[in-house]
């Protein structure tokens, strides 16, 4: 299973789902529902956090958070 945290820069992918965690409802409410198109735009120095385009806006998240998001 591929995670958003492993997605290379500027490669588009689709959200499959979010792993069970306390953050699941929050991530969903930020628009990361299944089928949503995402793309990693740029990374902070040291590669963490990352800025992700969530078709419509840019969301920055830690790698630990991006690791909860399954993509294809």
């Amino acid at each position, binding site marked *: 299973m591929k995670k958003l945290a492993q997605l290379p820069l500027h490669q588009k992918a689709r959200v499959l789902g979010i792993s069970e965690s306390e953050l699941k409802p929050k991530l969903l409410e*930020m628009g990361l529902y299944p089928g949503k198109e995402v793309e990693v735009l740029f990374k*902070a120095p040291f590669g963490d956090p990352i800025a992700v385009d969530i078709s419509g*806006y*840019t*969301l920055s*998240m830690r790698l630990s958070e991006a690791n909860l998001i399954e993509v294809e």
Partner: protein
Amino acid sequence: MKKIALFGNPNTGKSSLFNRLTGLRQHVGNFPGVTVDKHSGFLNISGKEIELIDFPGTYSIYPRSKDEEVVYNVISNPKDANFPEKAIVVLDSTNLERNLLLFTQIYDMGFNTALVLNMTDVASRNGFEIHISALLEAFPDAKIIRTNARIGTGLSELKAWMAEESVPRETRQQTLKAKNDLEGQIADTNTRFDHIKKIVSQAVSKKPTEANFSSKLDKWLVHPVLGYLIFLVLLLVIFQTVFTLASYPMDWIDLGTSSLASWLGTIMPEGVFTSLIVDGVIPGIGGVLIFIPQIALLFFMLAILEETGYMARVVFITDKLMRPFGLNGKSVVPLLSSAACAIPGIMATRTISSWQERLTTILVAPLISCSARLPVYTLLIALVIPSKIVLGFLNLQGLVLFALYLLGIISALLVAWVIKQFFKKKELSVFLLEMPAYKTPRWGNVGIEVFEKVKIFVFDAGKIILAISIILWALASFGPGNDMEHYAGKIQAPKVQTEEAMADYESQVASVKLEHSYMGHMGKFIEPVIKPLGYDWKMGISLLTSFAAREVFVGSLATIYSVHEVDDDPKQLIDKLKAQKRDDGTPTYTLASGLSLLVFYVFAMQCMATLAVVKRETKSWKWPIIQVGYMGVLAYLGAYITFILFS
């Protein structure tokens, strides 16, 4: 009074709209049980008084942090004092899909709801076209208004709707899931997005546009090397501005209050009441006002960084560095601001959504050496550190000053790490931060931000500062029995009353009076406790009085050693201090006792204004008391170890 609630996602221009609608008729109060402030604004629309409540920006009505709970608490309880009659939901027109989630949640509960399409200018620039008819079809009971809060379009239409009588709608509290029913909330959100996707496909069409300005700028501003460099340069500019520009109004306030006090002293009859006004109340008010230039300037610049969208980038590039210490990227600006003054620094922690991370930042912020420590540092360094060159080019005095600042920063991070270990149940540390597009600041918002921060400080923290000032005045002005007058009377007035001789005489009287006041007795009383640190009771008195503010230490020493005109030339005081001998004939101010005092001032919470602000921000006396306690212990141990090492 009619209550209308203002909801919306963060970064939708909700606050701009709130400012546009209410101007300066704003009031900051409390929501019961939470630390988040309640921002209300008052409008009078065709004779009707309306209270507009600006709720914190959230992505959903379900709380994901402690501060967000207030939205759920209010709308889930029709009996709540803040339960609104109508609701305005502000949406970012460039991102309707995500914004509509919150809107549908509120709309479905049966509120009279206005759907405010804000930032329409940005949307059309980015090629979005929004068809109101499709939105009206989906939400027939909603009032749909296009606004541009920047220039004020659509406001009169919104105001007219606010003043209208509410239309009866069926209230449907049952659409609300329980606060802890996460599964239910997830299922509900998924259903809503399925529905919203269909609406958006009807309501929004987008023409392709070129890569925008923001993404080009981000290549530089989050660059691994340039990103930090640009941030450091910006910080330097901010600090330089705060230091240099703030010092002028601060001097005027200082001069103004002391002139007012001495003028009142000459026209009012001598007595306790006059002394209360002249030595207690006016310096107390001066002690509040003196912080305004720093607070105003710092928030002016921080508001610009926030408004332009740069602040989100600072948080982005510093987050990783702060995480090991239980802090996050949002702690960086408050902590760095504390190098100018901990008060605006602590007030700037509002943006930290995690309560544990915010509290940690507040608790360690005063460890960062602020500008008020500088007079103490420079006096003591000049006193005990020789001015010589070490390692070929470094001045030893400058090196010690640098080491003191470094000690403050390192201890702040270490204490933050220790505090992190204390939290038993770790609050979820969420980063998830929207990166807003870069924009030019809205000056109205910047102005209101500065005004609000100054107002909160003066009216909320100011009361506490004034009260403590009066207590300190009373302790220094009264003594047991008539000791003060008795001992002061023993000093002979000069026979030839030259100006110089009179000034000498007056400073001797002031010195003796302070020695025999309650404060003087307290200084002597604590002498056994501070003796291991290398201090005598005279330093004890100065430590106690400088609880008002650190720089008071210098003035107190001057009073005790009956040195006048210390402001213009500290040399006289330094010479006098150098000449002080202990009972055994050794000098009082040695390298060991001087360094010990310096370390004490790095750690000790010697600032009642900071205390008052921590009380204001945490809404409890618990945290300021803990803070005074732990910083006091650090100061004592640090000073003790330093004294032992260097004696």
